[in-house]
């Protein structure tokens, strides 16, 4: 099977054959030359894999997050998105569009203060909204200079992780 892989800023193509626990793969990151890989992957508990890469042993765990598969291996965490190329072409969407930018709540919590008004011009790094969770306040700052075109955050309201607080243009 073929999969489009996104891992952090990198994107790549994975070609994978899997027969029982034996895996052969070829992986090509962002135009780097393709690398071959062969490993044995045994799912020993749901989501927990005992991996042999050559003779080296790895323990790994795969779980879901809202947007990606989270792979924990050798103490590292990787957030991997994998898409079937056939499905990917059907619902393509633009990544990293720079013009308009949403500032989202990084964690579930409560908006304690809104520091800007709709229509205001803000500088890069300027505080926009203060969100509190787990007894800690976090000031959301403008990732770039621009104008506040939408202000969804209301002081005192609860927000979910990923919820849009402010839109800048």
């Amino acid at each position, binding site marked *: *099977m073929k999969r489009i*892989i996104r*891992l*952090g800023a*990198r994107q790549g193509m*994975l070609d*994978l054959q*899997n027969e029982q626990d034996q*895996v052969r*793969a070829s*992986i090509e990151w962002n135009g780097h030359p393709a*690398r071959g*890989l062969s*490993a044995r*992957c045994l*799912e020993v508990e749901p*989501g*927990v*894999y005992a*991996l042999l*890469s050559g003779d080296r042993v790895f*323990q*790994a*765990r*795969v*779980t*879901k*997050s*809202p*947007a*990606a*598969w*989270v792979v*924990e*291996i*050798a*103490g*590292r*965490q*990787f957030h*991997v*998105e*994998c898409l079937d190329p056939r499905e990917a072409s059907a619902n393509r969407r633009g990544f990293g569009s720079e013009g308009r930018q*949403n500032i*989202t709540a*990084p*964690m*579930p*919590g409560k908006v304690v203060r809104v520091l800007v008004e709709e229509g205001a011009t803000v500088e890069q790094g300027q505080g926009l909204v203060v969100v509190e*969770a*787990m*007894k*800690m*306040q*976090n000031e959301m700052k403008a990732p770039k200079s621009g104008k506040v075109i939408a202000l969804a955050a209301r002081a005192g309201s609860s927000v*979910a*992780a*990923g*919820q*849009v607080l402010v839109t800048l243009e």
Partner: protein
Amino acid sequence: MFRKVLVANRGEIAVRVIRALRELRIASVAVYSDADRGSLAVRMADEAVHIGPSPSSESYLNIHRILDAARRTGAEAIHPGYGFLSENEAFADACEQAGFVFIGPPAEAIRRLGSKTAARRLAKAAGAPIVPGVEEPVRSLGQARRVARATGYPVLLKAAAGGGGKGMRRVDREEDLEPSLRDAASEAARAFSSEEVYIEKLVPNPRHIEIQVLGDRYGNLIHLGERECSIQRRHQKVIEECPSPVMLEHPELRQKMGDAALRVARAAGYYNAGTCEFLVDAERNFYFLEMNTRLQVEHPVTELVTGYDLVHLQVRIAAGEALALTQADVRWRGWAIECRIYAEDPDQDFLPSPGKILGLSEPSGPGIRLDSGVYQGWVVPMDYDPLLAKLAAWAQDRPAAIQRLRRAIGECSIAGIRTNLGFFRRILADAEFQAGRLHTGFIDEFFARLGREEEDVELADLAAVLASIHASRHRAAPSQAAAADSRWRASGLLELMR
């Protein structure tokens, strides 16, 4: 001895206390908020009483509800844990008024030590050294300017009633004083219902070393040595150890600091377990900061090295027993290091990361102690402090303890939420840490020195392969799953649909 004790807390410390009670053959009563109905503490206790909605102000801080729960279950004493009501003199008073023994110091001692400014005055009078500054809360901006100028910048603003870095601000220049003062006061007001703030001189790159004190109701007062807690982020401890690496070359310091701590405790009329916190500068001058009138989060390292169970001792003292040990009995054997595992993301400036624990592997083996408040499937609530568990290692010396802790961290895996485990893996591998050159600015310096960890290419390849295999076996990719069965997923879907 008591027959039944109520634990007025949650999370790992409630579990810790319940374990001690069971060992003492005392029945335990847990209290819980809406969010904690399925918590490990509630699962482990003998009895459990609902005390209100999730916000702590309506549950774990609700004195009335907690006393009701104690009455209803026939508890004889109340253990407050740390945080919440543990250092609240009104609560200690209310317990005793209602006929319950408060497992902690007398309310009067909490009152004397509760305000940092009052504690500094008391320490000074008792002959313990304190950081230069004012013992009085600042009354006006003008007064703050005068004091800061006289002390010399940089200064620290601190909440008089505070702890854990809340209401604390570093001020480097006079023009920053006014906004910092405002922030500190409002944060202090929110966290401690008192906006009193005081000023002290900032000691550059100090070590944070504290002394464990223990006393009974009959005037017997001893110390169990120090804990080094210099590894902090945002003034919150994350790695603690006993002994302090300083004591290797300067063993006389333990006695000196121990004496100072005992002087403070004695002056306050203290009994039960308590901790005097000190700053120690490069010349090993030490300054009393405050006394925590409760069990500390990091008490396990002292237990591992001295062999005493502090919670057992707390309960025995509260029940009116005399201390069965003297200062001469206390011996320090080997080395213990603890790391606090938080639900937070070290790559995103340690932002809290509440949510469901989807996978959990707990470390074990020689010399390992895990004090956890979570289990696989538990949803870490967003309403409370993000501490999940404390992982401690004991070994014969510091290098061996570090390697043992590294080994245990390698065995530990927590999936579904972000944790700071990877951060500990890096810190414990650091040469500066291993050399014991610790100070409270260590973490900031560490990140400045090393930056973010480079990605391991081989592991990234394997991760991509595993994710693809797992996705094909378990069909629906997270982003395509039809049922929005959690707000995490719902928000993720929103994010994707934008």
